[in-house]
């Protein structure tokens, strides 16, 4: 089958939904004429015109609000942030407005809105490196989706666009693939696996809330998203050489979360490592640990190992950034700890 990179897969999903549904519009900085800072929206302006692809000023709060207003009145709006770090400029619109409108209206208003963009640490310093998903996991009324492969990305972006709620769709710069400016570096991260690159040409939807077992195993469960999923798979490879069988689960969406798949795995392995690139404290990994505590405590033979970014703004120097962000070795060490505990 035809192979695509992640950026290209997301792009195809968006284009197909825009073709199928006139109400889908796109907005953000440099998304039109320029085709998007990471080329995800390449050529869309040409195909769909300036009434559906809006090149906005640098006004994150403003154009997020525009997306909400459009979503309230019959559109499905896709809003791109050039880096997800900039979503904080629009935080009130996302947290206080988009996420709350459906409930505040007693279910009468809907906000079909996709908020998407790239994140992840790639040597750009504290303001261009964050992983932001936990802020929105903690914001009721939103869904949070994170694809780790091109196949998942296409199916998930289509579901996100069709969803009637605000959906944060998180993309990792290092996973975009060679076609994108983020791709150069991607190729140099040796842990990135060439998985899920066979992408069907026809549109397909992957339901939100369905985790995917990226690798089946018996001895220890590793739960990871985005780039960390690839590092977890690298660890699974390494450990299998030592006779240890690792199950790697990709939640694919954190809200809704597929607790069943996770619990079934833990019932089998009794040992878990959770991995996330975001800041550890009150982050994704913390919530996963708490969820496992809630549902699987008596299945655990050792404390869940939580592996996440250090509780620090992300430093510029590559050696320091590497120390903050979980590396293959860190995940491997955690797996070994949970196995020996």
């Amino acid at each position, binding site marked *: 089958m035809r192979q695509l990179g992640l950026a290209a897969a997301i792009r195809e999903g968006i284009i197909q939904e825009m073709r199928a549904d006139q109400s889908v519009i796109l907005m953000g900085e440099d998304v039109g004429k320029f085709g998007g800072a990471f080329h995800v929206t390449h050529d869309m302006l040409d195909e769909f015109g300036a009434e559906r692809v809006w090149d906005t000023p640098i006004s994150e709060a403003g154009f997020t*609000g525009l*997306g909400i*207003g*459009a979503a*309230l*009145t019959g559109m499905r709006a896709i809003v791109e942030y050039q880096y997800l770090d900039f979503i904080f400029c629009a935080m*009130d619109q996302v947290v206080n407005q988009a996420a709350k409108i459906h409930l*505040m209206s007693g*279910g009468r*208003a809907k906000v079909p809105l996709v908020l998407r963009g790239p994140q992840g640490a790639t040597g750009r310093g504290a303001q261009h490196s964050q992983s932001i998903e936990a802020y929105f996991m903690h914001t009721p009324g939103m869904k949070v989706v994170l694809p780790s492969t091109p196949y998942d990305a296409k199916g998930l972006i289509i579901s996100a666009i069709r969803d009637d709620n605000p959906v944060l769709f998180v993309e990792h710069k290092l996973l975009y693939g060679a076609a994108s400016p983020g791709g150069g570096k991607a190729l140099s991260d040796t842990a990135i696996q060439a998985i899920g690159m066979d992408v069907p040409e026809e549109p397909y939807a992957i339901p939100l809330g369905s985790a995917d077992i990226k690798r089946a195993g018996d001895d220890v469960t590793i739960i990871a998203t985005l780039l960390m999923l690839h590092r977890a798979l690298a660890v699974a490879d390494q450990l299998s050489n030592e006779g240890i069988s690792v199950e790697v689960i990709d939640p694919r969406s954190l809200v809704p979360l597929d607790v069943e798949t996770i619990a079934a795995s833990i019932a089998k392995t009794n040992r878990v490592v959770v991995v996330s690139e975001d800041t550890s404290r009150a982050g994704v990994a913390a919530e996963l640990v708490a969820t496992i505590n809630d549902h699987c405590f008596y299945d655990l033979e050792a404390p869940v190992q939580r592996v996440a970014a250090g509780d620090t703004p992300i430093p510029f120097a590559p050696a320091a950034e590497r120390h903050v962000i979980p590396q293959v070795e860190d995940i491997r060490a955690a797996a070994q700890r949970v196995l020996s505990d």
Partner: protein
Amino acid sequence: MTTEIEIRRQPVDCAGQDAELLLRMFRKMLEAREFEEQLYYLFLTTAMPGTMHQAVGQEAVAVGVVSALNPDDTITSTHRGHAHCVAKDVPLDEMMAEMFAKREGSCRGMGGSMHLTDFSKGMLGAFAIVGSGIPIATGAALSARVRNSGQVAVSFFGDGAVNEGTFHEALNMAALWNLPAIYIIENNQYALSMTVAESSALPDLAARACAYNMPGVRVDGNDALAVYEATRAAVERARAGEGPTLIEALTYRIRGHARFEAAGYRPAEEVDAWKNADPIERLAAGMIAAGIASEDQLNQIRGEAERAIEEAIAYAETCSEVAAEDYLAYITAEE
């Protein structure tokens, strides 16, 4: 630099104007007034939940603006939104039921005073974060343009809201793209305790449109007809694809900022002077002077408005209590 504020007391100049429009505006303003006056009394005497912000004295803005719109045009409102809802034909019964936190409320008891909303009437939401509705209304204008629907979108907000970044970002985009949007600054001269001169470097708020290459108009906000006319011109511009307008309607909030807030930061003479410039009385006097209605006719309308609110209260009292778990159905929208 700042336009000196003159308190106008003269009757609205109704000569030769459309009687039906004037009477309808009069009735709407009375309903809005009575809705809030009765609420105030209910808050004093019963266990009403939450809080509320009264627009008593400002009714001509809401009613004048909305009277120039079509039913399918959209608006966004604020924490001080009752009058906007009344003007936009949100059923009084449902509004009152919402204040009582009842299931039949316009937001099913989930929103309350600060979030009164009714999509079926083009009322897109009351946003109680100051300034937050401005880009949302702008998005409705963008959507109208994409759908080629001919609708205009109006955002109501206060004099305090012009200092939020959202005002700036939204107005720039609306003007840049000639969106069919209308921005109404309900300048009641205070943002809680802060006067316009204390919070805005350019206290002539309509003039702030200069930065967006957009027309800015100041209008007597206690003259429903003047507000109507200014809005009508803006609506025409918007529907013709000529872009947005900023309208500053000069008015006064007679009550405190919220429920029982005493507003001690305002000179008593100032409040009194504005009480004597009441927009409802000015319209009544104008209609009588122009021979459009008799005192009797107006009294009859007054009685009808009072009864409408009485009935809304009676209705709300009989509505069903929100159950503890109702909200679970409204967290996310699912097919």
